[in-house]
């Protein structure tokens, strides 16, 4: 007797095999396809994209404004563009534009996160420059944005010292998927009875590999390390793009993988 030769390739008690369709498809497969498309566009441009994630009020927009000011002040630095995600208002995009940077605001309405489709449209509006930075400021939310790939190179978590040392333990997912954590508002630490080492220990508890930078967007303390990290990662991206362009490459493994995991997909507009 063989129970694995029906259309479903498997036998499930109580389910008729003729009417069972095996999908084995990720629920977020459609989002992942959009994200992969964004990643390809950014890869072709050699642009480095970060997805800034945090709870509301951690100082994401202030940090971004300060980052832009400092990048602008450095002669010959890479061009940049910003995608701002919020449920409502264009306040943040206006703050970014006040620094002279190009920004597009995405309002998610009732949505609690940006997704790959929204970011793809925002990228079309922005006309991303080659070899530039793309900063994507996600909706302030420590839960949902962790699960939605946007096509970014990496997620950057911002955690302010006023939030409590156990924040990474309470909301582990976001800190697990982030490559680097920026411990912001360190200028307030003496007034808040907080233990910065405990912040770092808790971050490493949920993500042993995470890099942590202590800084203050307000005073500028520690900001140079963040800029150096950005600089280094943009250069690394350029090198990987150039390496991919040199001959003797058999490219396409990622594309093969995505079609394998998505057999019935028909991508919408």
């Amino acid at each position: 007797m063989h129970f694995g030769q029906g259309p479903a390739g498997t036998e499930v008690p109580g389910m008729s095999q003729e009417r069972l369709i095996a999908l084995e498809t990720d629920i977020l497969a459609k989002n992942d396809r959009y994200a992969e498309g964004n990643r390809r566009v950014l890869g072709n441009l050699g642009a480095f994209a970060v997805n800034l994630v945090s709870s509301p009020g951690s100082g994401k927009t202030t940090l971004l404004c300060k980052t832009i000011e400092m990048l602008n002040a450095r002669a010959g630095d890479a061009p940049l563009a910003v995608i701002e995600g919020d449920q409502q208002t264009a306040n943040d995009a206006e703050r970014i534009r006040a620094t002279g940077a190009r920004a597009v605001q995405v309002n998610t309405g009732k949505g609690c996160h940006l997704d790959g489709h929204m970011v793809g449209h925002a990228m079309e509006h922005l006309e991303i420059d080659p070899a530039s930075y793309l900063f994507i400021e996600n909706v302030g939310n420590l839960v949902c944005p962790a699960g939605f790939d946007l096509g970014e190179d990496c997620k950057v978590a911002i955690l302010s010292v006023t939030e409590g040392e156990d924040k990474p333990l309470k909301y582990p997912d976001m800190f697990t998927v982030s490559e680097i954590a920026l411990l912001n508002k360190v200028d307030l630490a003496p007034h808040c009875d907080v233990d910065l080492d405990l912040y770092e220990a808790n971050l490493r508890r949920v993500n042993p590999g995470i890099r942590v930078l202590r800084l203050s967007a307000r005073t500028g303390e520690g900001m140079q390390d963040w800029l150096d990290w950005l600089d280094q990662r943009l250069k690394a991206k350029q090198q990987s793009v150039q390496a991919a362009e040199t001959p003797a490459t058999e490219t396409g493994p990622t594309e093969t993988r995505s079609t394998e995991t998505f057999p019935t997909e028909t991508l919408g507009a």
Partner: protein
Amino acid sequence: MHEMSLCEGVRSVIEDAALANGFSSVSRVRLEIGRFAGVEKPAMAFAFDVVMRGSVAEGAALEMIDLPGRAMCYDCAKEVEIAHRLDDCPLCGGGKLMPMGGDEMRIKDLEVT
């Protein structure tokens, strides 16, 4: 938290599958959900009923299968199974665990007519 968006993803995959496989009604949907996927099952069940309205899966039964949480221990360098996100390593007691699995959110199969 984002169970509504997840169900919209489920609906979209089912609608594509209906076109590809030529079925017009789904009676049961089986999902595989990892322990660390952050999916709230009652919220998922509620959102599922609402989002599937007007689709081929309207009124379909939803079954959610748990997948275990797996992590790499940075102390003993072994892959272990853990029940909760902040558990220590069951082998060496170390506290530095990097999740390696358990965040799956998959549509396993559909029972269709």
